[in-house]
């Protein structure tokens, strides 16, 4: 791997970040906040760092393997610069600021800030905007870079082998990127518009749109969406969380007039998982907590979609739900949304393939001489993809187990540890027990925070991309 081109691209991206900090700066100036000068400072620092990286290291055509080091590096280094505004505005330590920003860029939405309502508006805006930036990066990552690198069986999404071949990564990224940016920006505007119509002010509407579409989940209120207690706002957010968690290439074809949603088995499975979970949770809450059925349904649908799309908004403290519903939420955290969206975790399509692999083994026992091929949407899935998916699943479970052990070693209780790892690995945000939706991660010691930062990164980068960094031969030329 050559560091030159990697650092060159990193420099370019830092420039983009510095430019995007102009928005919160404008926001600060508009609201006459003192923190505006911080953004001015941060823009300068980031711009200088970016430009010097770009000038110091030569541009070269990058190879695939370097393409994904760009990805890993970006998600580790950009949050360092992104956390500057939070850190410089005082109040929180650098680790906290880094946690918060990683949580934004990985569209997790786990927060260490216990009272967000006293924060200056420009900081809040920047916090939500990191999610939006992260989300767009992820869609490109998911649809272009990971398939080309065959991470965890991602090759399925290479559109008819027209994807990037071995050498030139850039042109393809730009092309697909542009289309997706279009869809993404279109959805953002639509959502801001709808939220304003439902009675939010423009500022809150934009922050929540960034949060919902990026499936992040930072809110501008302490009680999250529960603050508004408005049916309209909830439905708009449910819709866009759902859209954010489903494949953007489906949205793209739909916007061009071809509705192909129901032909996609992943989409259909995702829809049925959602419907089934909502049904079970509704029954459970109304039965165990003696809630009115319609109230129960309203809470169930919002929070189930929020968790399963790995957003993490809440309308109620689901930590107070019965254990049955909590377990369903934990399982949803592990499953996550569809591939090709902004959602995290294992992804529905992988679950679908895994079930098929498992069933095939069963058939093989009964018919030892038959040959079975696994199909998805009518296409035969090659064996190496299936192996990739299996490896990914196993790796995910191991990471989940080990990180939970580390959390436990720091004296956290079982439910807090398990749910905090599940939620950060899946990019959801709130967990259960001490890190529930109405609590924050602020009380944790530094090392568990770093472990969770690692989980957010690992989950977001589909594990293998990050783990490869630990293998010595990766760093050789």
């Amino acid at each position, binding site marked *: 791997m050559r560091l030159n081109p990697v650092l060159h691209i990193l420099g370019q991206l830092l420039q983009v970040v510095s430019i995007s900090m102009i928005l919160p700066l404008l926001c600060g100036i508009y609201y006459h906040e003192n923190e505006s000068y911080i953004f001015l400072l941060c823009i300068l620092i980031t711009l200088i760092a970016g430009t010097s990286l770009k000038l110091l290291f030569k541009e070269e055509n990058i190879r695939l393997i370097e393409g994904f080091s760009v990805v890993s590096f970006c998600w580790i280094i950009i949050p360092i610069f992104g956390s500057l505004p939070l850190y410089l505005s005082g109040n929180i330590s650098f680790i906290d600021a880094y946690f918060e920003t990683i949580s934004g860029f990985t569209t997790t939405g786990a927060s260490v800030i216990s009272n967000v309502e006293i924060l200056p508006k420009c900081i809040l805006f920047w916090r939500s905007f990191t999610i939006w930036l992260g989300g767009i990066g992820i869609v490109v990552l998911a649809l272009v870079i990971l398939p080309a690198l065959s991470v965890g069986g991602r090759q399925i999404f290479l559109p008819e082998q027209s994807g990037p071949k071995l050498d030139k990564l850039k042109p393809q990224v730009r092309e697909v990127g542009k289309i997706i940016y279009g869809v993404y920006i279109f959805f953002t505007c639509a959502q801001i518009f709808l939220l304003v119509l439902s009675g939010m002010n423009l500022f809150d509407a934009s922050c929540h749109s960034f949060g919902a579409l990026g499936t992040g989940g930072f809110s501008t209120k302490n009680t999250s969406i529960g603050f508004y207690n408005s049916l309209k706002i909830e439905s708009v957010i449910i819709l866009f969380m759902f859209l954010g968690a489903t494949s953007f290439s489906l949205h793209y074809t739909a916007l061009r007039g071809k509705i192909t949603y129901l032909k996609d088995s992943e989409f259909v499975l995702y829809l049925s998982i959602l419907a089934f979970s909502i049904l079970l949770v509704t029954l459970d809450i109304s039965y165990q907590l003696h809630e009115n059925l319609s109230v129960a349904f309203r809470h169930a649908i919002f929070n189930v979609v929020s968790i399963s799309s790995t957003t993490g908004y809440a309308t109620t403290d689901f930590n107070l739900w019965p254990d*049955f519903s909590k377990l369903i939420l934990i399982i949803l955290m592990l499953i996550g949304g569809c591939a090709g969206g902004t959602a995290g975790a294992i992804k529905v399509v992988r679950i679908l393939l*895994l079930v098929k692999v498992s069933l095939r083994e069963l058939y093989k*026992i009964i018919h030892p001489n038959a040959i079975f091929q696994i199909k998805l949407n009518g296409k035969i899935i090659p064996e190496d993809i299936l192996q990739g998916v*299996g490896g990914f699943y196993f790796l995910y479970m191991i990471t989940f187990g080990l990180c939970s052990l580390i959390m*436990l070693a720091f004296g956290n209780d079982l439910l807090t540890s398990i749910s905090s790892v599940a939620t950060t690995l899946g990019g959801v945000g709130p967990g259960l027990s001490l890190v529930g939706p109405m609590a924050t991660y602020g009380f944790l010691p530094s090392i568990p925070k770093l472990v969770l930062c690692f989980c957010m990164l690992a989950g977001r980068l589909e594990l293998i991309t990050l783990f490869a960094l630990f293998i010595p031969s990766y760093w050789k030329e």
Partner: protein
Amino acid sequence: MMIGISMIFPLIWAFYYREKEIIVFIISIIATFLSGFVLSEIKSQDEGLRLIEGLGVVSLGWAAFSAFGALPFFLSGTLGYLDAYFETMSGFTTTGATVIQNIDILPKSIIFWRAMTQWIGGMGIIVLAVAILPALSIGGMQLFNAESPGPKIDKLKPQVRDTAKILYGVYLIFTAVEIILLIIGGMGFFDASCYTFSTLATGGFSTKNLSVAYYNNPFIEGVIILFMYVSGANFMLHYAALKGKIEYFKNKEFLFYSAIITSSIIIIAADLRYSVYTNIIDAIRYSSFQVVSIITTTGFVSSNFDAYPALSRMILLLLMFIGGCACSTGGGIKNIRILILLKYFYREIYQFIHPNAILAIKVGEDTISDDVIKGIMGFFIGYISIFIIATVLVTSYGIDLITSISSVATTLGNVGPGMGLVGPMYTFSFLPNFVKIVLTFCMWAGRLEIFSVMILFMPDFWKE
């Protein structure tokens, strides 16, 4: 019919102790013999079993044996029929999860029968693991086909007998040795045999409410740790050792198994030293007993591990999933599968960096074929899926998360005690009937390596 014969043993005990349960066993024996006789009349043509049918016989056999094995508990009035079935299934699958709240007041003959079900179950498992699973390539176990002279093509019966005979010999020798050692350690002959049956089969039924903690005797604990450890390891290795070839340290699975045990003991001992015990010796004594007891899926208890700190409990929970070695009486996912999966994902990462490299996965000298890996992967997914579905079912009855998760993990891995309300100092008796049925199913499915039970639910299996 074998079950009927084996019920004669508790009958002898009953005569010996002059208990009124004699009549119960006599009735059970007669009932079992009669139905065994009727069944063998039905298939009197005695066709050679095909492999797949053999598997069906084994799976159904486990369920049916338990139905008859439950008779003594039921007829003696100790338990209701569902509870009796749960208890017997727990015995035959060598789980050791119990619904009997007070064991101390039970008649000796019933206690003996309870311990004996495990011992019989253990024998069945060895045949299953050595002969049937490899031959049918279940869950990647064709891996052991080359090492063991497993049946190749069609007729199951003769070769199963050969392999089984050898291993039964090993099993009997160990049983005798452990009984003698426990008697030296100060147990009575009755208790010594019950504990031995439990240990060798990695079951975990005890004759005392307090399990092994009752004796509070380091020598007895040491003996039991040794034999649990031995029973959790591959019996083919023991056979080789008895023939004079010590191959333990050449076997990667055995090394991996020992490494997991050692590291878990160290972590838990350190964790206990800072919380429960002030004395490092005590911490090591209790942690080594508990770790070996859980990983071998025995489930004996020498201290209440549910009162351990969260880290130790989580490690024990993970050990329930790992389980013993292949071709042992232990349950769980098995060490060899975990080892291969670990190597496999290292290869995934390596190939990711070097896309053109071809790397074979090796365990010891043997190269692992892709079919084995697929089998193991399918097994792993199946195991986790059943775990999740069963946990969801259990929580839906309003049972708390820790209890649900651990009760499913413990029954699926055939361990015995769980945590929370099914912790080592409690029993499974308070659970609603439906949950007991789910857990009984988990024991059954876990013991028969998931797939053997799952095929019974496939329509294709029942076609000619």
